[in-house]
């Protein structure tokens, strides 16, 4: 069964979703939770069976789909994708379990299960076309989630979300077709397999164009600074579960794809674009932090802070060394946990008051002490307090980039500190002071159902903040292989210098793995 565990992980939720049409409406949430728990258990099993010492792909599956055009169904995980897959199944689980009652809940749960299929598919796919299939398919359930259960502007927000990402990924698709064509020219065989593409060394001019094509697709998904305008609408209008999954998992597709595609395929172009992208990332960190400060709506604050932290992830990725990339992958997990939790927390207060405006609140710490505590913890994690999960990732990312440029790192570091201001202000507005609004006097504290989602997240936040090793080790292993591959493939002297040579040992390991 372990040979096909990835396929099972991908298609089990979809199959369960189809079967879900037969379930009675009243029992639907229990059914959804049960499926998600099984799925999460399977993903934990995947972790258990995962060999931490191997840097290459594991649990590979290979089925020919369209061999004459080089499209194959290839799956595999390494340290980079493993934890994102686990996080995706984890968030679907707690998302469904803590779902507050809403209309047509049956459709919503089926949609979530389909969404889960696409999310895991993206992170497990090792064929560009299969990757693209899941990448695009993930838009549809999200479109429906935002459009059917969102706020008053939901249709505008959902269509904007769809069109933005759809446009970007079509440009990326052209890039993929070019890549396959170059592979065909070099070897005489069509192939869309990513591991095959890794072996291809392209001249720098081609790399620059292809990098740009892929960049548009990924940057819109992340979303990076000039392309970020769809995200506040999507977050602002989406139901809680939609925001949670969007922030925790869907955005990670973009940053993950940078590491999976852009860096190893185009090392010279990555070095060439390193500083422009770093500057964009820093603009993104500072600018969105400033916008966040000006927001009146608590959910928008969280949304912009989420974009701001994605900037740090990008910065770490484009440090192009082991510390930076490992840090950025760890930060992806951390960002998922923390911003997912923050969106859940916003959802808690929204369910009670049906408003998200900060001016409506104040002094909630007296009324809802447990809520205030968890919120405070997540907020500390979000601003990067040491001993919380975000700190590890941010520190490593910045440490990585420090080796490339001192000044930019300093700027980014200051920006993160400044970022603390808006979070603390928001916290002050909501929780401290006297209870001024009559409606807030008798708010019930977090219920058991909500704690079910929030307590595991709090535990993870602290646990991985203190002891990140179990996750960091496998990530490091795979990242070393990626960096070594980039170093070997780099053609320009500057790229050779910027991308460190990790060690000779790692290459032989990947090489034997690829030979399988």
């Amino acid at each position, binding site marked *: 069964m372990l040979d096909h565990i990835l396929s099972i992980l991908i298609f089990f939720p979809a199959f369960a979703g189809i079967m879900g049409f037969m379930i009675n409406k009243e029992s639907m949430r229990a059914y959804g939770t049960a499926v998600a728990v099984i799925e999460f258990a399977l993903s934990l099993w995947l972790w258990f069976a995962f060999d931490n010492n191997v840097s290459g792909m594991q649990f590979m599956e290979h089925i*020919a*789909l*369209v*061999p*004459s*055009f080089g499209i194959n169904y290839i799956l595999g995980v390494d340290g980079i994708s493993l934890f994102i897959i686990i996080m995706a199944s984890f968030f679907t689980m707690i998302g469904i379990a803590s779902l507050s009652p809403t209309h*047509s809940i049956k*459709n919503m749960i089926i949609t979530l299960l389909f969404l889960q299929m696409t999310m895991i598919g993206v992170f497990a796919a090792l064929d560009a*076309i299969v990757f*693209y*299939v899941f990448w*695009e*398919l993930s*838009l*549809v359930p999200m*479109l*429906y989630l935002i*459009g*059917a259960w969102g706020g008053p502007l*939901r*249709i505008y927000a*959902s*269509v904007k979300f*769809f*069109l933005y990402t*759809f*446009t970007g990924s*079509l*440009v990326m*698709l*052209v890039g993929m*077709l*070019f890549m*396959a*064509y170059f592979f*065909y020219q070099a070897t005489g065989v069509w192939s869309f397999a990513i591991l095959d593409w890794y072996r291809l060394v392209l001249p720098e001019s081609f790399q620059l164009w292809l990098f740009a094509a892929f960049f548009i697709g990924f940057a819109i998904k992340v979303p990076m600074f000039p392309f970020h305008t769809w995200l506040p609408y999507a977050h602002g209008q989406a139901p809680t579960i939609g925001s949670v999954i969007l922030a925790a998992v869907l955005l990670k597709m973009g940053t993950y794809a940078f590491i999976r595609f852009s860096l190893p395929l185009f090392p010279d172009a990555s070095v060439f674009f390193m500083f422009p992208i770093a500057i964009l990332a820093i603009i993104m960190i500072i600018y969105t932090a400033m916008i966040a400060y000006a927001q009146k709506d608590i959910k928008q604050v969280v949304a912009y802070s989420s974009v701001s932290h994605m900037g740090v992830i990008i910065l770490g990725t484009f440090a192009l060394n082991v510390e930076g990339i490992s840090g950025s992958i760890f930060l992806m997990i951390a960002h998922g946990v923390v911003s997912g939790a923050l969106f859940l927390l916003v959802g808690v207060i929204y369910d009670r008051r049906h408003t998200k405006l900060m001016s409506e609140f104040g002094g909630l710490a007296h009324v809802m002490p447990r809520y205030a505590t968890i919120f405070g913890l997540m907020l500390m994690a979000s601003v990067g307090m040491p001993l919380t999960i975000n700190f590890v990732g941010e520190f490593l990312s910045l440490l990585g980039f420090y080796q490339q440029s001192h000044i930019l790192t300093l700027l980014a570091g200051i920006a993160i500190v400044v970022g603390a201001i808006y979070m603390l202000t928001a916290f002050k507005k909501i929780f401290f002071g006297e209870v001024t609004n009559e409606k807030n006097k008798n708010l019930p504290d977090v219920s058991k159902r909500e704690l079910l989602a929030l307590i595991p997240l709090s535990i993870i936040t602290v646990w991985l903040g203190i002891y990140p090793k179990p996750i960091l080790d496998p990530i490091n292993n795979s990242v070393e292989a990626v960096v070594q591959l980039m170093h070997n493939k780099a053609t320009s002297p500057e790229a050779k210098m910027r991308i460190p040579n990790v060690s000779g040992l790692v290459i032989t390991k990947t090489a034997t793995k690829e030979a399988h």
Partner: protein
Amino acid sequence: MLSLANVSLESLNLITLAPMLIPVIGALFILVLDIIKGGLDKSLYVVISILFLALDFGALLESAGAFSKDGIMLGIFDVMLIDGLAIISQFIIVVTSILFIPLALTNKRFHEFSYPEFFALFLFMISGFQFMVASDNLILIFVGLETASLALYTLIAMHNRDKSFEAAIKYFTMGALAAGFYSFGSMVFYALTGSIEINQIAAVLEANNYADIGFVLIGVVMMLGSFGFKLSVVPFHTWTPDVYEGSSAAMAGYMSIVPKIAAFVVAMRLFEFLIHANIVWLEVVLYALVVITMTAANIWALVQSDVKRMLAYSSISHAGFVMAAILIGTTQSNSALFIYWILFSFTNLGAFSMLWISRQKELPGYQKTDHSFEKFSGMIKTSPMAAIVMGLFMLSLAGLPPFALFWGKIYMISSAVTSGYTVLALIMALNSAIAGYYYIKLIVFMFMKDPIESNIDNNGELYVANATTALKTIIGFAIIGTVFAFLALDSLLEFVTAFVYNSGY
């Protein structure tokens, strides 16, 4: 004195005619049957048509076998040309017809289906299209084209509503103009080369090194105008939305597939050798036509308020997309054209059938046209299955993976990429993004808006009012073709590429 030429029956190679003659015999059979016993039910005629088309399909299999063994076949004084293009396109024509004809078995009564002549004309039309693709003789192509078109005009008019007459007349007028262009273009080529066989024309022009390039230009422009009308290429597209709106959804769906593939094959035969002769202005003109057709049609489609008109513009845009294959002119692009069209036919069959089963006889007040967007609002709440199926076809048309059209799209864009048309590839990709909006618009109406009061009461009956088992079966075929296209893709790709390559395209 004319003396009788001594022609042996052998050399005529009559077997090449078999696939076209079968539908003709079928049509005559239906007419004779009507004379012997009138007032028979439409289901009988549907089944008889299907049976004859199945025989036709069998004959095509025979030719396909012969082609893969002996290569290109000529027959009847070398007027018939059975090559890979002819065979693949005839497969598309016949199979699509088999899938479309059962759409006549509706729940509601439409009077055109009560005439046996409808089915006879339908079969005549198929035979016309088959003649058109299986020849490189400009006169026979013309005869096939006109046989098919005249039958088609009549079929549209038989729908018997005000708008259908308008549509038929409009289509007829435009078609007549196109026929004029065609004959004028053929005349120019004949005057230039003394031949009406496309391969002869190519050979003569090649031999004198395109000396009279000015006259070639006139001929090509005339031909482009003529096929522009048939393929609904902008700016010759103006009839399309009105004709689609006026004809029944089943007929409109049929028109979006079969006449166009026939015209594409002729265009491929005619323009390919000119493209390969490196005539720069032809490339420029075709490039402009392709880009304008794709883009403008997409933009018009954005503002439509009726789903059928939206699909009409979308089919113009798809035709523009596929026209790119003729511009690129490699084996890969020509194969991509056929693959795209095969996949497109399944998806469009589904989309138009879904409109067809929701066809009402009388329109409620909130609905200005047969299939206005408002009609579909909140469909997920009243009839979820139909909404999901319709959404599926829309996603496929938008080119979302893993549904049928996505594969056609990547193969087509890939063919642009491999022959160095980078900008064109990007334009094609971005056009898919524009198109995404109007397909999503229908999904927005179906899934995200609230249903109209009267629809809640009758439980979404409206959306399946016209459905019967036969129609549902056809939609089932369309769903299978759309969702599981990727399973058949590899064998399809190999089959089509081999046939196209062996015909020298």
